[in-house]
């Protein structure tokens, strides 16, 4: 989401691979705890990096919860066509929207949206609109790896990997093995 052109050296690592793993394990347990199990649960990752996170959370949930298959609770939700800032950026690529195996619509499901960074909240607003056309979930929750503040809409996360106070000018860069070959979260750029 964030155009990162700063050189590697200017950033600070805030989460390493092990930290990300621990945060996801905790979120997986929190999701189960909050929803009293995995009944009707659907995890929808928002491409690009929310998608691998959703699959990792689903795998962790499948490990601890008997009778749950990761492929049957994790899917993807593309929000590009619902964004309110399309005309401010070059044309964005549309990614796939794919409900988990065996899930036909989202009626009466508990949907957990999964994204890497929560910033302005506009992506999540678009995601809520996109969800509306796939059914009427019983509840929608939000899990993010990093909450960096500076919300522009009344949106908050239910499950947060790490709260990261940042300056507006800084960039939070999440890298994941599936998309970037390595797991890390860095803060780059900005004038402190």
């Amino acid at each position, binding site marked *: 989401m964030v155009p990162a052109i700063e050189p590697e050296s200017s950033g600070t690592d805030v989460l390493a691979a092990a930290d990300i793993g621990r945060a996801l394990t905790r979120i997986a347990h929190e999701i189960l705890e909050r929803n009293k199990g995995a009944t009707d649960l659907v995890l929808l990752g928002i491409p690009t990096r929310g998608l691998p996170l959703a699959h990792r959370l689903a795998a962790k949930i499948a490990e601890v919860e008997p009778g749950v298959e990761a492929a049957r609770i994790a899917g993807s939700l593309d929000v590009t*066509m619902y964004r309110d800032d399309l*005309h401010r950026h070059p044309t964005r*690529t549309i990614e796939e*929207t794919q409900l988990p195996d065996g899930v036909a619509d989202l009626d009466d499901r508990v949907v957990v949206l999964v994204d890497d960074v929560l910033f302005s909240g506009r992506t999540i607003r678009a995601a809520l609109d996109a969800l*509306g*056309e796939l059914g009427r979930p019983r509840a929608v929750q939000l899990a993010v790896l990093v909450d960096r503040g500076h919300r522009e809409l009344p949106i908050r996360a239910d499950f947060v990997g790490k709260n990261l106070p940042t300056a507006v000018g800084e960039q939070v860069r999440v890298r994941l093995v599936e998309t970037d070959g390595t797991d890390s979260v860095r803060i780059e750029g900005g004038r402190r």
Partner: protein
Amino acid sequence: MRHLLSAADLDRATAIELLDIASRMAATQGREIKKLPTLRGRTVVNLFFEDSTRTRISFETAAKRLSADVINFSAKGSSVSKGESLKDTALTLQAMGADAVVIRHQASGAPHRLAHAGWLGSAVINAGDGTHQHPTQALLDAFTLRRHLVGDADNPDGVGRDLAGRTVAIVGDVLHSRVARSNVQLLHTLGARVTLVAPPTLVPVGVEGWTCDASYHLDEVIETEKPDAIMMLRVQRERMGGEGGGPGTGTGFFPSPLEYTRSYGLDARRLAMLPEHAIVMHPGPMNRGLEISADAADSPRAVIVEQVANGVAVRMAVLYRLLAGEREAWA
């Protein structure tokens, strides 16, 4: 990409990108709620100087599914029948604030003129001009070909791939066909091999310079090339001159309809000669009994109705690509 005027303007990467967007758009069209808010507040004008059913409806559906406002303009019943020029029509549209103009015109090059004359600030999409180009038809044909010939169980639409190594025969009235011209260019860009088949009178002058082969013999092409797809073209009698409009007019290009059908029509016998996996395409409207028999048109291998459905997805992709991004400064 500011306009879509010709299939030749599309490089391989852009063509694949458009087909991939179309695949995403097609996925949304299987839902109960098909409408997306993407182009809310944008205005698309359908400017049709020539008759059309499927292309106009297809563009209208595509724009409406993306929540754009659609204004339909057809030459009949407008000021054009009072003698208004293309320029004045364009200036009127500009004054109304159209974001995109979809134009079909009987004169080759009219969309190019509209896009580059400085009359309009909007994006121009060519929906067929004379015997020149019909790029969205080529895109929907490529989309249909990719889905049937390249897609597999994991990737049913063949997202991200081209048509390398596939062979397509385009048969019939090539001379008058903008569909053939656009397809030859786009399919070649995507790596497919195209063979044109037509009677000598309906092969355009200069076809040697096109990126395809040409033949006069349909049976021979089916036997030797074993095409993965055969695309039948409509015999465009309205462009062939002759008097009146009834059957039998405009056949100066071949001795008789019956003889044309015997040499170049797709019937049950030729259908059986095609490879097992080959698909039958037609851009419509069909002249049943002339270039295609009912056996072929209604066979399970015909994807003619699917082409129409894919047309909506492809046109949604084109509108998205041209209108959803940053507004470039108008020259």
